[in-house]
Each structure stands twice: as C-alpha cells, then as structure tokens.
C-alpha cells in the first residue's frame, strides 16, 4: 500500500515545545561533571581548536588587523608541528575581500556577519544587499541576526520570511542564524526561535553576536541542540550549531564538546556541524595543548595576541 510521504509542514511556532528551566539547567550542569583527562583531553583540545571561528568584529577593524588574524588562523602556534587550523575567520562584510585573499588556499572558511549586524534594525532590502555584498566578495558563510523586536512582538511570519529571503540571497554560502539568546529572555523563546530559523532554511543556528550579555551559556546551547535533534528526526536534515561569546576557557569548551557528544553524537563532532564563536578561546586552548605535550604551563606571552 502506498503511504503518503510526510511533508515538512511549517508549524505554528507558538506551539514549539516548552522548556523547563530547572530541568535544562540541571542537565547542562551534569555535563560539567564528566572528567576529561589525558588523551581524551588532548584530542578534545585539538578538536576544539579546529572548531573555532576566529573573530574580529570591531568598528576599528582594518585590513592590517584582519590580515594578522588570518595568519594566526593558519598558523595558530608554529612551535608545535601538525596542529590543526581554526575553522573560519569571521569578519564584517567590508573585510571579506581582504580575509578571502589572506586565507587563499588554506581551506579556512571566511564567514561574514551581515543583515545590519548586531542589532538587525534595518529594512529588509538593506539586509539582502548586505548579504549579497558579503557573498559577492567571497564569503563562504553568512552569520545573520534575526529581528528580535519583531520576534518579541509575536510576528513570527516576518522573522521566518526574513530568514528565508536571506537564505536565498546567500546562494551557495552557508547561513548561520544568530538568535541573540541574551535578548530573548526565556528558554521557551530560544526553542521557538530555533524552530523558526531551522524551518526557514538556516544551515546553522548560533546563540549570540557577542555584543550582548549573557552570550552563549550551556543550558541555552542545550536547548538549541535538542531543537536540532528533533528537527533532524522530523526532516532528516542536519543543522549545525555555533555557541558564540563567553567561551574563553578550554575547560568550558570541553564541557560543550561533552554536551555535543551526548546530545547529537558522532555526526556533529566536526567543524562542518559545530563551531565555537570566540576570539580569546584559541590561546587558552593552545596553552593547554602545550601543557599536555610538555607537562608545563607557558606564560601567556608565549602565545600571539591576535
């Protein structure tokens, strides 16, 4: 008997699953109880390094700054041979060309924020042009922000349509959708925004711009990972995850990896599906890698500040 194929139906997002705050925070803290030692620590650190989106998003960014950052992305710490590179360099659209050239041939992706980052308070056609500009200059990935004002006003269709139109403007580039969870207020809303973004065509969902506190937290990331898992089971489509902002220490990054491993498993344990949006994490990871290899902690001055 022929069975009607299930179609992905755009849901009523106000019916997105609810999240129990106490429960999700308890589960998230449980991941921090895993003890990561010896070779699993070293392997976790190498994986973390390889998942970092090295980021500079400042008004004072210049070509020179971006070039230096790109060199660091390719050569995080040349004193140790065979280290992986980071996953991507994340810049403003105006810096995409410089980054693309500097990273040429390295395999490192260029990610560009777009859509009137970080506030997202601009008309849609401006956001689309912003996106197209970044992609035309060579961005492999676009990190957009959602319209949080519209989201709070309950205009979910507006948010959905905007994400869909940016996705269209991205063409081949992968789209990361920043929910700015620090402005959403509840885990219920984080879940709802995740569902909207995934259904509207996001390739990645991302917690934060890094400009608002709180940025990424473990419970927020867990809510998003669980949304990804459910979306995968419903549609068969994998969505990537990028916690950003506030993850500056290796130990915390390893806790995130534990959470990823125990929530989504092997298929997501690579930089195609998981990223850390961070700038200061890299040096702490490098310091820990050196410690694991030599048994000694080096002073911070041994690691370049880019």
């Amino acid at each position, binding site marked *: 008997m022929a069975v009607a194929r299930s179609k992905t139906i755009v849901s009523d997002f106000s019916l997105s699953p609810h999240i129990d705050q106490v*429960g999700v925070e308890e589960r998230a803290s449980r991941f921090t109880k895993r003890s990561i030692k010896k070779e699993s620590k070293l392997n976790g650190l190498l994986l973390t390094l390889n998942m970092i989106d090295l980021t500079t998003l400042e008004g004072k960014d210049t070509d020179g700054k971006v070039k230096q950052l790109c060199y660091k992305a390719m050569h995080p710490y040349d004193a140790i041979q065979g280290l992986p590179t980071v996953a991507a360099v994340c810049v403003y659209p105006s810096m995409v060309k410089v980054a693309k050239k500097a990273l040429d041939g390295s395999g490192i992706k260029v990610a560009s924020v777009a859509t009137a980052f970080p506030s997202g308070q601009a008309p849609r056609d401006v956001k689309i042009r912003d996106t197209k500009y970044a992609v035309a200059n060579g961005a492999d990935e676009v990190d957009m922000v959602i319209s949080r004002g519209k989201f709070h006003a309950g205009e979910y269709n507006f948010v959905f349509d905007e994400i869909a139109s940016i996705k269209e403007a991205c063409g081949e580039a992968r789209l990361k959708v920043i929910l700015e969870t620090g402005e959403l207020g509840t885990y219920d809303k984080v879940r709802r925004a995740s569902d909207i973004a995934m259904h509207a065509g996001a390739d990645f969902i991302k917690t934060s711009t890094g400009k608002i506190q709180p940025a990424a937290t473990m419970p927020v990331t867990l809510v998003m990972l669980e949304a990804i898992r459910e979306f995968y089971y419903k549609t*068969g489509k994998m969505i990537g995850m990028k916690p950003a902002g506030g993850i500056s220490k290796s130990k915390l990054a390893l806790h995130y*990896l534990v959470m990823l491993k125990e929530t989504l498993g092997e298929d997501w344990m690579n930089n195609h599906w998981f990223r850390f949006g961070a700038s200061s994490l890299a040096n702490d990871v490098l310091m820990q890698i050196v410690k694991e290899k030599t048994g000694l902690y080096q002073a911070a001055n041994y690691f370049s500040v880019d």
Partner: protein
Amino acid sequence: MATRKSNTLKLKFDTSWSYAPAPESKSAATINKQYDLFINGAWQKPSSKKYFDTINPANEEKLSEVAEANEADVNKAVVAARNAYEKVWRKMSAKERAKYIFRIARMVQEKARELAIIESLDGGKPIRESRDFDVPTAANHFFYYAGWADKLEYAFPNRNPQSLGVAGQIIPWNFPLLMAAWKIAPALATGNTVVLKPAETTPLSALKLAEIIQESDLPPGVVNIITGAGATGAAIVKHPDINKIAFTGSTEVGKIIQKAIAGTHKKATLELGGKAANIIFEDAPLDQAVEGVINGIFFNQGHVCCAGSRLYVQESVAKQVIKKLKDRLESLIVGDPLDKNTDIGAINSKQQLETIHKYLKIGKQEGAEMYETSCALPRKGFWCRPTLFTNVAQSNRIAQEEIFGPVLAVLTFRTEDEVIEKANNTPYGLSAGVWTDKGSKIFNMTRRMRAGVVWANTFNKFDPTSPFGGYKESGFGREGGLHGLLPYLNLAN
C-alpha cells in the same frame, strides 16, 4: 532536501572522541582487614566468634570481614544503650546533645571523600553519586536534626515531648551511610539512644561512621553499631528492652517485623518497597521529562525504594518519548563505580542480580518488548545494562512488582482519570512523579495520587527538611523534617 523516514535515522553516540578512565584513588580510604562490633563506645569481639566477608560487587574481591552479632551481642548492645540513656543521654541538656550531633555532621563533611570511596567500593554505586549525593545529604541530615534538639518544645508546643528510650534501627544496602544518618540523627536529637544494624552486604560506611562517632567523644553507648544478617536483625526486633523499631527495607521483612512486635509496647516506623508511577503528559517539557525519568529509574542502579519504575506516557507523545529515552540510554556509561564518569555502577549483590534477571525473563515471557543499551559490561562483578520494556500492560508482573534494578516499564494512557486510577492501582504508595507544563494539572494530580511524595517536573529530590515515607504497603511513619521527630517522641495529648 529529500525527507527520510524518521525511523531510519539514528544518532551515533559511540563517538571517536571518548573519555579516558578517570578513577578516584582507593588509597584515600582506609579499610581495616577486620571489624568488630561497636558497643559502648569500644570495638568488641563478637561472642559468636564469627566473621563474614564483605566484597566489592564490581569485581567480587573481598574488602574486609566484619563480626557477626548473635543474640548475646545484641543484648550487650541494648544494655549499653539503656545504660547510656538512663545515666547520661536523657539527662543531658538538649543544647549539649546538639553539640555532639553538629560535631558528627562536621566530621562526616571532613571525611567526605573517604566515605564516598568506601560507599562506592562496598556498594557498587558510582562515585559521582556517593560524592555528590549520599555523603553530603547524610551530613545535611545531621546538621538539620542537630538544630532541632533544643527546640522540641517549639516543634510541639504544649505537648511536653519526651524521648522513648532505646531505638533499634535496621537499614538497607542501597544508601548505607545516608540511611544511617536518617535513622541516627533524629533519634539522638530527640534524646534516644541507638542500636543500629547496617545491611550485611554494605556494612563498611556505617562502621566508618562508628569510628567518627568514637572520635567525636559521644558518650559511650549512645550509638552502638553492630553487624550481621537477618538473624541479628530479628534479635534486635525481638529484644524486650527496645522501645522503638525503625526499619527500612523490603515489604516482606516489614511484615515479619510488624508481626513480631504485635502486642508489645514498641513503636515502629517502616519504610518499605515501592513501584512509583512517573507520569508524562503531552504538554510536558519532554526533554527535561525524559531526563527526569532516566534519573528516576537509573539513579543508584535502580536500587531505590522510591525509583520511578513505572512510566506512564500519554499516547500522543509515547513514540517520541520512547525514542528520546533510547537515545539517552545510549549515553549512559556503565562500569567501574570509582570512575568519575560512570553513570551506572555495579548491582549490589549476586542475589539482587538474580532477582533482576528473573524479572527480565518474566517481562519477555509476558510479551513486553525489551530494549537494553549496547554497552559492554565488565567480566567480573555483578552488572546489568540499563533496560526498558515497552508494550507493557497494567497486568504484567514487571508493572506490578518491585524489581529494584535498572529496569523501566513503559505504559501508555489517554486521560487524566485513567492514569490516576492506574498509578494508584498498586499495593505500594511511596512516591510518584508528574510532568506537565500546566500548574492546575499538577495540583489535581498531587491531590489524588496515593503516594507519600509526589514530585512535579522533577524526581528523586531529597532534603532533610522534607518528610519522606509511604502509604499502604510502602510503610508508615515519616523520616525527615519536623515529621521525622514524631516517631522518636511521646507527646502529651
């Protein structure tokens, strides 16, 4: 993108990045080769002259041997407790009594690491639990009841609260140290003296507590800790000079105790078995509910009298919940109890493992679908994979009888009335759980469930301030909180 059928999709939790072993060091704990009986503040040889082995259930190696107390030894302990009661403890001012209990609480905290290691070695529970739950909660119990000692007049105003005398206390093997704390702390706070017997498979943490008590300079005889099996327990129950029996253990033994003390003046509290219903409504936060269900049944290998061993899921979300349960099951780590990453340790004894296996067989024979995790088990020791049964009917034995292991029976329901009826349809009534986003539903459920504790949107939460105890064949009397003082007091009407 093409849509694949969701039942072919599978997440792979056996990842290339894995956790290296992170064992807690055994050398931080001192275990003697042999333990005598702790009577009248001193270690005394058993008049039986017999000792029995206590083993590590994770590798079946002998840890120590402990004395077997016979009737004469029990009598010696009761006489010591009676003397201490009449001559010292009942006369001591309440605030002085409190100081001793506070001191014991602090010493339990100071020796927390050692106690946690001993608890995991002797009982098989994961170090994460003994370190983060058993030992700290035990210390909290002493702290809490120390505070009550000089405030009994305020707890029961105008009722002239008076101590009873000697309490005989018999505790189980699932939370050896914590149960000792639950029993000893309120008894001392109310001015009673104690003869306590830990379970024969897990005596070591109680004996370590005896060392702490000795070091705390508690007057000799106020707490006596003697070891032995069922016969020793029976001798305590039958001893004529005991005023109160406090027992935690199986319903079967509870009934024997009640028969034995019928017609005597002895007061009793019994905390017995359970077959708790954990109920998930379709509007519940499902991921958190699943986590709560997992902790509700797999905490301490399911050796928990209030374990949520019957899961009732509303049919509309049953498939989804079962899938989530199976995924979560795969990320549980079964193995060395001393490894900090272990979620599920060893089954406490060979006998208990046989009981669990018996029920697994029954479940399959009854036609329920069995699902167990794919994890490898160590060769030596007593192990059981976390297991769940789906397609279970209310009339199945695995849904009615207490298994006391890591085995969850999953049943479905349609309406609120139906699930309340099914949840109450058991001889037990110790605990229950309700998962829903709707507050009014929680209150409706908690009002109608016949269980001593009902958790809402959480499970297995314990606090010294909160009373705990059962309905029906789960026993009577309450432990914890102000209610926990009552069984150790006579009150004027």
